[in-house]
């Protein structure tokens, strides 16, 4: 039993799991094994959602048992069971809940960010320094550039907006992407040789 608890086992599993698709990608060999492995991932991800459901129930049933936020927990479990049941019992109600309740509510929550952006425009966007001035000029140009009606009236705005988008903006993002790519390679190499163990939960 102590053998199964050894840290080397998950590291070896990680190395095999990640090297198989890599070898397949670069050499074309082991394609059957790599393909099989990829279908395992789909199965594993599906099971991870089951773990999520179990955790959801454990957490909220525990809350109810201890009398902590009982109403919220009952609401969460009740909503979950109701929506699960309705998916099988009445498809039209299920669709209605998604289109008319879930979608507008989700959009409302996302829209909060939009509202607070406007207060930032009023309170935070100050011409205090040369960099702030530059940032604000770009903000105004891009705001107007992304407004089709304004763009229709001012072709010069398209030229300036395109330049900002395609030159400084793309350049900066290119740098970020290259940095991310190199970091991923380094992280992968460290994980393969067992130097990176945070994904094992050990920190």
């Amino acid at each position, binding site marked *: 039993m102590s053998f199964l608890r050894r840290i080397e086992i998950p590291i070896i599993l990680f190395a095999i799991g990640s090297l198989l*698709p890599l070898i*397949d990608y670069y050499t074309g060999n082991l*394609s059957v094994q*790599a*393909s*099989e492995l*990829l*279908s395992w*991932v*789909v199965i594993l*991800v*599906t099971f991870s*959602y089951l773990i999520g459901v179990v955790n959801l129930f454990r957490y909220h049933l525990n809350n109810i048992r201890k009398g902590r936020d009982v109403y919220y927990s009952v609401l969460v479990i009740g909503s979950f069971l109701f929506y699960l049941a309705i998916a099988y019992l009445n498809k039209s109600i299920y*669709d209605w809940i*998604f*289109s008319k309740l*879930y*979608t507008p509510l*989700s*959009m409302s*929550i*996302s*829209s909060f960010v939009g*509202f607070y*952006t*406007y*207060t930032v*425009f*009023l*309170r*935070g*966007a*100050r*011409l205090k320094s040369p960099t702030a001035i530059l940032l*604000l000029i770009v*903000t*105004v140009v891009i*705001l*107007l550039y*992304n*407004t*089709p*009606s*304004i*763009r*229709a*009236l001012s072709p010069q705005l*398209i030229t300036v907006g395109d330049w900002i*988008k*395609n030159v400084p*903006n*793309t350049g900066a*993002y*290119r740098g970020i*992407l290259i940095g*991310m790519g190199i970091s991923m390679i380094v992280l992968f190499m460290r994980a393969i040789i067992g130097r990176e163990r945070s994904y094992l939960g050990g920190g």
Partner: protein
Amino acid sequence: MDEVQRTGIPLVDRAVFMIFIILIAIPAISPLGLPISISSNTVEVYRQIEDLKSGDIAMWITDFSVGTWGQVGPAEVAIYRHLFDLIRRKGIKVIIVTTYSVDGSLNAERILREYVDTRGLKYGEDYVNLGWIPGYETTLMAMAKDFQGIVKTDAYGNTIDKLPMLRDVRSISDIALIGFSTSTSPDPYPRQLGGYGKPLIINTLIATVPWTLPYYEKRLITGYIGAESDAAGYEKLTGMPGEGLRTLDAQTLSHIYGVGLIIIGNIWYFTRRRGGKG
């Protein structure tokens, strides 16, 4: 008790919110009919989809979350309508699939149910909905290399052998055009689907567009649509008006309002500073 303590929101902020709500409500009550300029990237996407030929298979990956429907949904609807119009006009075939989360498949179902006219089309021969295949980037990679190995059934439980249009789809080389919508990172799609010489189109949030541009520059992504403004342009190109054109006036007013707030905020700041309060 002052205003902030009572409501948690300062009075000025509440005024900003109220004016914003009024501004976006005006065009909903009485459309202003403001002019529209169609961006070159929208025309490019339209052209790539329109150029599909009879028998070509287009695969559209609907991966955006429900909360971002306002930005991504209108263009997604416009593109679905265009693709389904092409099924009728040219005889193309369409695969719809989700890889990121269940939200995407629910969005796809909603679009098929409420926005797209599928009357007269044969499911399984003209189009299929594969639903959500969990795994995200892994699924994208698997679909590109061994489609039949990863896709076993569609969203409704039909096995792949009962869907004639999928019988000959073995890998990405059998697909003529790939598109995807996302409200998170665009990175996995060009990483897994971008190196095959196929058109790869993205429909995403306006804030994600800059993220896609390095890929677009290298043609790993061949076209992009960013939020409602491009959706409105796309609707105009297809001649099928929808939410994009309907919200165009509100979007214009809200952007002008944003610029106005920046100007007012700075006038306020410099006036207070000159008076020794800033």
